[in-house]
């Protein structure tokens, strides 16, 4: 006997599958790695009745037609991994639609246990189930559960272990799902041809294959090479269309529902008729023709506020802690020994780790909010409200939330695209998200705008920059949908699940999972890039002769006769000069200088070039680097002395071009890393980096050259 039993949890979205999975496995779970990494299956472990259970949480699906990636992952798991038992979790208060997946599982012939979840809700709605009759109908053990209270879990595990060990009860025979006469005739024509051609022999049953082929299952169809089968399929589709007046896909779905209605009519009784549930009453308010959108915008403001305002103090603490840690190490470090190692530790590693961890409060808070929106059912309403607007730009209603979060920080915004079910929608949103001006870019605008523009022009300038970003994101999304993400438009057929109270456990697990994944997967990449950028700006060190010159200058300052304040200023000036010389001498400085010919058409000099290299680590670094190359020390965006230097060195046109370029080009390394990670391939991260950088370059060159030609802001 096998010691480990593999249990697959299947079920519709919103049927309470995740809650049951959490209930069954507790904290003993991790994200499993299965082919098609973008859709994740979680795994958990549990001991029950002397057996070790490996419980796999399949993606929630409504069907197994390989219509979406989730369906394909779920189906491939069932077929390739052959789990010992499949537990289908059904929302008993919405039985008919939930049984649609169950019927497909029955057709697939897997050992099945049906969990009638939310049975308390179903009972409150007045449903009475004749369970023995239903068990006979569907040929599967049925267990009633209430996931959010943890009821029925032992019975569910008992049933799963029993079915896994001894197969279905002898008196249960899986029912034959019989289709209408016309469809059955066509199945009878196709199945023998499938068998003759040896299609999927040993993998799928010929009848099942025939049904799926008739349903135009894309995954199966592309493997069918037999002309005879293809020919028959064409003929069958035409005949069904002619006889039934509808294509085979819808006819087959209709017949499955017919089968389900038949069973439900006999075994399910509805004792009371409730016209309007609490859920309907909530909907009457939150999707109200007048108040719906203000309520939505208010909630979005709350999410934004929670993420970035409440998140700000912990972010400051984290920054302070890492600053203190770096400073502490600097203080106890033996004077003058192994300076390079000290710099690596303080500026490279601690700075890098700090740069990763600093996002964590944002990410955790954002996902707390998203988990609540998602688990209560409001997310679907948000999509319902915003879909019309988003659809016009070629996106899904659910893309709205990531776009909004993007104004705060692009990294959590990309993680937030997880709520999008369709891969094409998700990738499109991810790729254009950096065009939404994030908080870090605001520091660049805040430095540049007051430096070049009079008071009256400052607010409109900022507005123009934000609008340019939004318009480009819209255009970019449209372009992507017309080019690489072209394809049949995905219907917006979305369930509006009843409102539910989320369990604290589920919300916390959701939050924790994402935070952990961010730290583990994206964090390591971001850390690596930070250290690389540190190395670029630290090596090679200033030659000894140069360093000696600055030492001598400092000594001279120390011995000169002057007041204390003057001395401090003088020494600071020397320090700034040395920092500038060191940066110029480093690889980053050399690359910046080397880039100058390429930057020239945009009106940029090598100093901006060096700062742009820093901006790739994180956008706000641009400001600090500009401070160093202009020898005013580590400046921030409020630095008037740096603004003075900028006014001397550049025209307002160049200032504007810097903002345009920073807005569009080269999303920060964290964004690229997270896009690569969430997109499932480095291809997407690099496409985003390359695409946006080229776009930014071209547009900035146009702006600069046209501006100069017309003489706008060139003075």
């Amino acid at each position: 006997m096998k010691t480990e039993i593999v249990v697959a949890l299947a079920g519709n979205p919103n049927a309470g599958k995740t809650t049951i999975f959490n209930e069954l496995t507790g904290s003993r779970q991790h994200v499993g790695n299965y082919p098609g990494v973008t859709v994740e299956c979680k795994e958990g472990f549990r001991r029950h009745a002397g057996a070790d259970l490996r419980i796999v949480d399949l993606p929630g699906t409504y069907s197994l037609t390989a219509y979406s990636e989730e369906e394909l992952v779920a189906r491939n798991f069932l077929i390739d991994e052959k789990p010992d038992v499949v537990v289908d979790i059904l929302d008993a208060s919405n039985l008919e639609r939930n049984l649609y997946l169950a019927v497909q599982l029955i057709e697939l012939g897997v050992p099945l246990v049906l969990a009638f979840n939310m049975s308390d809700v179903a009972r409150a709605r007045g449903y009475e189930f004749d369970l023995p009759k239903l068990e006979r109908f569907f040929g599967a053990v049925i267990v009633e559960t209430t996931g959010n209270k943890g009821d029925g879990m032992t019975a569910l595990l008992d049933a799963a272990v029993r079915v896994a060990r001894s197969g279905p009860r002898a008196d249960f025979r899986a029912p034959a799902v019989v289709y209408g006469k016309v469809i059955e005739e066509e199945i009878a024509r196709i199945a023998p041809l499938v068998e003759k051609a040896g299609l999927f022999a040993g993998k799928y049953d010929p009848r099942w294959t025939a049904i799926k082929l008739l349903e135009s299952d894309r995954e199966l169809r592309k493997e069918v090479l037999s002309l005879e089968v293809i020919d028959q399929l064409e003929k069958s589709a035409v005949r069904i269309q002619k006889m039934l007046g509808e294509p085979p896909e819808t006819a087959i779905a209709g017949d499955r529902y017919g089968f389900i209605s038949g069973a439900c009519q006999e075994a399910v009784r509805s004792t009371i008729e409730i016209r309007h549930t609490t859920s309907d009453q909530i909907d009457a308010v939150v999707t109200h023709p007048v108040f719906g959108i203000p309520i939505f915008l208010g909630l979005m403001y709350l999410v934004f506020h929670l993420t970035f305002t409440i998140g700000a103090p912990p972010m400051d603490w984290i920054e302070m802690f890492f600053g203190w840690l770096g400073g502490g190490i600097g203080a106890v470090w033996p004077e003058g020994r192994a300076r390079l190692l000290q710099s690596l530790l303080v500026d490279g590693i601690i700075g890098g780790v700090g740069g990763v961890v600093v996002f964590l409060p944002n990410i955790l808070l954002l996902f707390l909010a998203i988990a609540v929106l998602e688990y209560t059912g409001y997310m679907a309403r948000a999509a319902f409200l915003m879909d019309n607007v988003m659809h016009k730009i070629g996106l899904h209603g659910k893309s709205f939330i990531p776009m909004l979060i993007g104004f705060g920080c692009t990294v959590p915004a990309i993680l937030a695209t997880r709520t999008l079910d369709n891969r094409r929608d998700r990738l499109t949103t991810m790729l254009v998200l950096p065009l939404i001006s994030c908080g870090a870019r605001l520091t660049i605008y805040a430095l540049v705008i007051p430096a070049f523009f009079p008071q009256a022009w400052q607010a409109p300038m900022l507005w123009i920059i934000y609008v340019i970003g939004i318009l480009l994101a819209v255009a970019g999304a449209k372009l992507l949908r017309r080019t690489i993400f072209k394809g049949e438009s995905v219907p917006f057929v979305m369930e509006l699940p009843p409102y539910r109270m989320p369990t604290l456990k589920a919300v916390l697990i959701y939050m924790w999972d994402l935070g952990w994944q961010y730290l583990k997967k994206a964090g390591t990449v971001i850390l690596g890039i930070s250290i690389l950028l540190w190395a670029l700006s630290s090596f090679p060190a200033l030659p000894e002769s140069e360093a000696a010159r600055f030492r001598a200058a400092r000594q001279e300052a120390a011995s000169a006769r002057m007041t204390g304040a003057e001395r401090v200023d003088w020494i600071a000036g020397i320090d700034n000069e040395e920092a500038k010389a060191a940066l110029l001498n480093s690889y980053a400085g050399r690359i910046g200088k080397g880039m100058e010919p390429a930057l020239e058409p945009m009106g940029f000099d090598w100093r901006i070039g060096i700062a742009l290299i820093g901006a790739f680590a994180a956008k706000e670094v641009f400001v600090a680097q500009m401070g160093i190359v202009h020898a005013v020390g580590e400046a921030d965006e409020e630095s008037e002395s740096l603004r003075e230097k900028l006014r001397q060195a550049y025209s307002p046109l160049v200032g504007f071009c810097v903002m345009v370029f920073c807005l569009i080009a080269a999303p920060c390394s964290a964004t690229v890393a997270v896009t690569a990670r969430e997109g499932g391939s480095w291809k997407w991260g690099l496409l985003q980096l390359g695409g946006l950088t080229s776009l930014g370059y071209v547009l900035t060159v146009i702006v600069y050259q046209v501006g100069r030609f017309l003489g706008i802001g060139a003075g």
Partner: protein
Amino acid sequence: MRNALTASLEDYLEAIFQIIEEKQAVRAKDIARRLGVSNPSVTGALRSLAEKELVAYAPYDVISLTPRGKAAARDVVRRHEVLRDFFVNVLAVEESAADEAACRMEHSIPKVILERFIRFAEFVEVCPRGGEKWIRDFGARCGQGATREDCERCIESVLEEVRHRKRRESRKAFPTAKLNELKPGQKGKVLKVNFHEGGGRKISEMGVSPGAVVEIERVSPMGEPIDIKVKGYHLSLRREEAEEVEIETL
């Protein structure tokens, strides 16, 4: 002119007509495959059809039907369908067998008899003394053998049915509409879901399949999408998808 066509040439004409309906363009290869004959015999047949000016055909060119050819083909197809429908709907013959018999009979049945045949089939379906139910009873009787005691009750029920139908007709039949034309609060019964690039399947998999009752709950403040209630739960659809669903308003 029709008399000059052999049964086999009629088959060719029918095949060309059907392939054009399905795929727009016809190649000799398609005809050969559909009829299960060799390429040279297709060429031969095409040549004699071209001689009779029913088909525009030149070697290696696209084959098309002349207006006269189209009329002749339509005639053959119609004869086939009338016969097959009669066999299936009235005689309760199994569909594939009906198709085969129709294939063989369509060439020999004279036009006059065919016309009478059609009128008879219509009459049987419409006449209260006959009607669909009567035909169904015939199908059942073919399977089970005779029962006589129900005759009286049957005739009574027929009379009832005639009165019922009269009443219903005076009340005006349920109008059909597209789902997107309904207003919030209106209900409808799904008649069919049109195929729309995979969207049709998704919609019917979510429970909007023929026979299901749907109710428009509300429309998004932006005018789209719409929220419908089906099988006891709420589903959101864009108007372009709702347009694919034909319903009977209730």
